[in-house]
């Protein structure tokens, strides 16, 4: 037994109550209000149309005569929609400006790069660069109650970054950097999902955003800045050997582990501290790590990591223990 029971935070991905209508921050709250507003508008208009239709079909002759002429078209078909639409347009446009405002100076910046089919995460340094930046994958940690700027980019095809409870979605387009601001008002784990079809297992490209109180966040960030600790027990040490012998380092970075400098896959320096593996689809523990390594293609068909079916039980035990220990 190596770590306390953790929950995969299934609630982060729960579909009920609908996350798009359950805001957890100031960039999502006005969207929820807007949503209910437009639903109400639609309900009212639909009722008016149905009422007019019922009257036209089954109404008394004198009432029918009142609406059976061009006045109905002018009033109900043109004037009324113009009023409703103008109001909605003003609401929508003011919200557009409010939600696309410039980041404040000194705001924390995270660069998230969409890749087939996972997310590369870099916590940018104060200059906005990646030099010395903490690297991670498929999980973004943010301090509670502070707006965070996301620089959204793509390494291959178009993806779309969406954490419904925190704010709007925004595409990640090769050659461009899109800016999205999000903020979580409560500590917790928020599920996200790639929303733009990106081929293959697009359906299984999730992520989590974990909001932590500022002091915990700072402590966590300091830990993340460290290189990976050397294995402390024999099993993990054997795991490091397995990791190196099987060439895992050709695709994965583990800072502090010799030879582990590949950039094709997620940075694993602190993989043990993450909530999920496989891009937000599995809880992270020794068991799932072993299962993923041995048969990632069975779990997420078409992803870029091969199934390591040749590892023996002992090797699997060891490498899972090693990775789980990379906290």
């Amino acid at each position: 037994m190596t770590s306390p029971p953790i929950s995969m935070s299934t609630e982060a991905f729960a579909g009920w109550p609908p996350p798009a209508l359950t805001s957890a921050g100031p960039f999502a709250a006005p969207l929820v209000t807007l949503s209910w507003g437009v639903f109400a508008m639609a309900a009212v208009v639909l009722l008016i149309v149905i009422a007019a239709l019922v009257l036209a079909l089954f109404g008394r002759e004198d009432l029918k005569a009142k609406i059976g002429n061009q006045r109905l078209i002018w009033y109900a078909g043109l004037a009324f929609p113009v009023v409703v639409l103008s109001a909605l347009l003003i609401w929508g446009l003011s919200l557009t400006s409010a939600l696309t405002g410039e980041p404040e100076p000194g705001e924390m910046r995270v660069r998230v790069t969409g890749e087939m089919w996972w997310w590369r995460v870099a916590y940018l340094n104060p200059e906005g660069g990646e030099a010395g930046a903490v690297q991670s994958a498929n999980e973004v940690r943010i301090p509670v109650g502070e707006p965070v700027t996301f620089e959204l980019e793509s390494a291959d095809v178009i993806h779309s970054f969406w954490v419904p409870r925190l704010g709007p979605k925004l595409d990640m387009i090769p050659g461009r950097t899109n800016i999205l601001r999000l903020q979580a008002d409560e500590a917790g784990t928020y599920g996200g999902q790639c929303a733009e079809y990106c081929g293959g297992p697009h359906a299984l490209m999730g992520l989590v955003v974990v909001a932590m109180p500022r002091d915990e966040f700072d402590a966590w960030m300091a830990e993340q800045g460290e290189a990976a600790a050397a294995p402390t027990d024999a099993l993990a040490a054997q795991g490091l050997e397995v990791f190196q012998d099987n060439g895992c380092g050709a695709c994965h970075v583990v800072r502090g582990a010799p030879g582990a400098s590949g950039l094709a896959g997620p940075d694993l320096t602190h993989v043990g501290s993450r909530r999920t593996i496989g891009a937000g689809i599995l809880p992270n523990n020794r068991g799932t790590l072993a299962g993923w390594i041995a048969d990632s293609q069975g779990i997420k068909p078409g992803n870029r990591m091969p199934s390591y079916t040749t590892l023996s039980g002992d090797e699997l035990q060891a490498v899972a223990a090693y990775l789980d220990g990379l906290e």
Partner: protein
Amino acid sequence: MNGTGATGMVLMALALAACSGAGETRTRAVPSGDPERGLRIMNEVGCGSCHAIPGIDWPQGRVGPPLSGMGGRALIGSGLPNRPETLIPYLMNAPVADPGSAMPPMPISEEEARDIAAYLYEH
């Protein structure tokens, strides 16, 4: 695979065959466990990434054996008797309970393991 393992497999196969013939006479149970909670915990820790488990649609792992009909099996792991008092520690920390097992220790408490065992014996 060592001799014990092979024997265990044969016995398991026999047990399964016997079970299918003899009905539920040899099924096991963990009355003190909560099978519903067991299923939820298995989902939360992701047992499915290695095992196909009845009631869990996704994932249905192919790394370890499928876990259907556990109540009728004679042996678990490399030849341990299939009893709650062996299964529960096995679920929590297989390498200790059964050296040589490929199953890593799982982050669950004894109570949670009990619930899981209750579920597995029921399905």
